[in-house]
């Protein structure tokens, strides 16, 4: 059973699985309004939370797919427990991450060991051929690094690759915060970097075989999207007006809801249409793959429609290639829709109102 929290008339869904279930199984889309973790500084794709229209939330509650609850306030009584468990969990995560990091370093080193040996052999051969030039470097390099065989210039590239690959491991964790070591190990392929890398990250099998503790600053933290601990909340009755649900009983809301429900039952996908001068945008399928066909405007049954509004809405619909749909509930509870279409030709413009079976009362304002 899905739970949706409501606060101040706004329903937000914070779980990705819930969003998936609502969209795939129930045809209720909502709109994402938060920053996307993968790209928080762009506007084309947004992330959680998902904002539901009040009509959507009420529909889901009515059909029993979702329980609406008032957003729970943090309980001071549980605070101590929560804090203790958080600290425990943090420490545990830290330990696990250190272990995993060490294991990863070890496996990586093992993998590249053969290549290192190969490269070293080849280099020695090459050195025997031309002498003198890199003797000094080789000597200092071999002195500088103890235990690790990657002392030569020729292996500097391999070492670089090693450092870079596990750079996310070592470069971050070993060099920690930027202030501590000025040079990233991946930038500096020289003996000094190798020495630093050797000292701090200890890939050698000889001197250290235990777990080198991860610097605190290299610990990975999750900034949780949804509340990371379960909590109890009060159920919300959408039939009753309250601070968290002010829509109950309001005629505008009831009108929109009846139209929404009717269109949803016919299989359409609906979303908000304020930008288009209407109440809902009506899609034949999922908005990801289909364009909207109609702009639905909700009118109460006895409300006269000003002719100017009709004309302006019709023209707007034409310019965005959608048909205007006038909807109003009938006394028997069902909703009735009428389409107003305006056809545009390249040379002349003329307006054609679809023939209506029922007379719609038009009064110029």
């Amino acid at each position: 059973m899905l739970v949706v929290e409501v606060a101040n008339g706004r329903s937000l869904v914070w779980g990705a699985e819930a969003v998936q279930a609502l969209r795939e199984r129930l045809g209720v889309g909502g709109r994402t309004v938060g920053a996307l973790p993968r790209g928080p500084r762009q506007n084309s794709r947004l992330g959680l939370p998902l904002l539901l229209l009040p009509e959507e939330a009420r529909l889901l509650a009515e059909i029993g797919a979702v329980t609406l609850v008032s957003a729970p306030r943090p309980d001071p009584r549980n605070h101590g427990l929560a804090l203790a468990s958080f600290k425990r969990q943090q420490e545990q995560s830290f330990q696990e991450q250190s272990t995993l990091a060490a294991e990863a370093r070890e496996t990586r080193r093992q993998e590249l060991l053969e290549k290192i040996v190969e490269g070293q052999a080849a280099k020695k051969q090459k050195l025997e051929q031309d002498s003198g030039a890199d003797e000094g470097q080789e000597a200092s390099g071999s002195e500088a690094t103890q235990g690790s065989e990657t002392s030569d210039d020729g292996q500097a590239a391999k070492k670089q690759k090693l450092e870079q690959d596990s750079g996310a491991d070592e470069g971050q964790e070993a060099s920690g915060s930027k202030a501590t070591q000025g040079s990233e190990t991946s930038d500096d392929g020289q003996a000094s970097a190798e020495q630093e890398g050797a000292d701090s990250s200890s890939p050698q099998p000889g001197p250290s075989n235990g777990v080198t503790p991860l610097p605190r600053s290299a610990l990975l933290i999750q900034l949780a999207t949804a509340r990371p601990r379960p909590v109890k909340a009060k159920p919300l009755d959408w039939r009753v007006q309250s601070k968290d649900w002010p829509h109950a009983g309001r005629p505008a809301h009831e009108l929109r809801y009846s139209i929404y429900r009717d269109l949803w039952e016919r299989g359409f996908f609906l979303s908000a249409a304020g930008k288009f001068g209407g109440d809902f945008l009506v899609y034949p399928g999922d908005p990801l793959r289909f364009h909207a066909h109609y702009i639905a405007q909700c009118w109460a049954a006895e409300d006269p429609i000003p002719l100017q509004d009709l004309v302006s809405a019709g023209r707007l619909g034409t310019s965005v290639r959608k048909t205007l749909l006038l909807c109003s509930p009938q006394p028997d509870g069902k909703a009735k829709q009428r389409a107003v279409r305006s056809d545009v030709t390249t040379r002349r413009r003329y307006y054609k109102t679809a023939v209506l079976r029922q007379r719609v009362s038009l009064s110029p304002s």
Partner: protein
Amino acid sequence: MEPDSEPATVEVPAGRVLSASELRAARWRSQKLPQRSHGPKDFLPDGSEAQAERLRLCRQELWQLLAEERVERLGSLVAAEWRPEEGFVELKSPAGKFWQTMGYSEQGRQRLHPEEALYLLECGSIQLFYQDLPLSIQEAYQLLLTEDTLNFLQYQVFSHLKRLGYVVRRFQPSSVVSPYERQLNLDGYAQCLEDGTGKRKRSSSCRSVSKKAKALQNSLPPMSEAASSPPACDQSSQYSEKPQESSPRKGSGLSFQALGSSEPCPALAREDVECGQENEKIKNGAKGAPKPRWNFEQISFPNMASDSRHTLLPAPAPELLPANVIGRGTDAESWCQKLNQRKEKLSRRDRDQQAEVQQFREDVNADPEVQGCSSWREYKELLQRRQLQKSQPRPPHLWGQSVTPLLNPDKADSPAAVLEHVSVLQTTHLADGGYRLLEKSRGLEISFDVYQADAVATFRKNNPGKPYVRMCISGFDEPVPDLCSLKRLTYQSGDVPLIFALVDHGDISFYSFRDFTLPRDLEH
């Protein structure tokens, strides 16, 4: 607080908590954003496999994107703490790159507004704590967006603009410079003083403006009291022979507030010292409470021009001065002598231009009849006589009827005047009359100042300059603002354009009103 009629019974499941291996694996996530709908959209669902497959692919990507959690290194996060009773977020560790455009310093501590903190939390730059427990984004939304701080719609618009790259700050009414002040280059002056604390600025603009400021400071009388001008008149009548002319208010409208001592600075050598002194005063004044808008029709200034020199200025009333400042009366005569009274040497082109313009102007003093008048009364009598003479030969067949001509021939000196008589519509600007509406009951308010994205490199929080636009935020279900609110808001905004951001369930659209003047005849 309503009684708990229903106990809290529904269990809200917890959000996803990543394990250590998942955290590490998160570093290798792709950073690319997939396309929303792969390829052009279809028209109608036709139940085909291909359509279903494409839809499945799009959906799968969407779920994958939404399910990702934010993973950051502890070293790159700035720790911050939410203080609900004070309504701000205090930084516990030094701020990062975002400090250039966001946040403020107070009492030596770095602070953020709730909306800035929430935005940075969503970006993954800070870790927000409340009572030592880190807040998830859901909890942060709940705690930081309350009625006192900021509502949800305002936060949506704020984050939308920040993601686009703009620099968005809360609206500061004190930063609004009226067009008049801008015309006087007052904002440039205040900035100039702020830049050169105690140092003498070599730029000529500062020099000349500072001279002007001193002159006006000297002439700053007790303000806005109609009752005080008679006493001033009485005093002045003892010293000057000519009666005081009714105040020319030329350029004296500097709203320096009660800046204290009207100490003269006769020696130019002391100018730099004065500049430094005024520095602090101006700075304190400029950064203080919002400047009240003075009604210059009621303030009278003494005329210190050469035609009727009135240079003996009384001491300002002590209740108008700050406690530690003594004001005294002064004789600005010596200072006035230092004014440059030499005749301006114009270039040849300027002289020609002046002569051209002069041709078409009639000098009243060149009229011998006017020269014959020895007092105002005689001059007025002359004018009346002339008026009678002009109006006497009026053809009765035109003027005796019930329908008379619209204009007198002598009154119609330009097509513009004629048009004014005929015009039915009058040009009005949205900000006109806004001054009187400031005290009216509040409804819609200006929320944010928005600065352009390309100014980020040179943006200074202490001196942000003129904003690009100002934002008012509302929802779609609220009524359209009425003319009263529009006028008030436009006046409040000064000369910065105002944009209304309307939020409709996550969708934001921007609207603005534009002042438009109908073209008219320019020959005036």
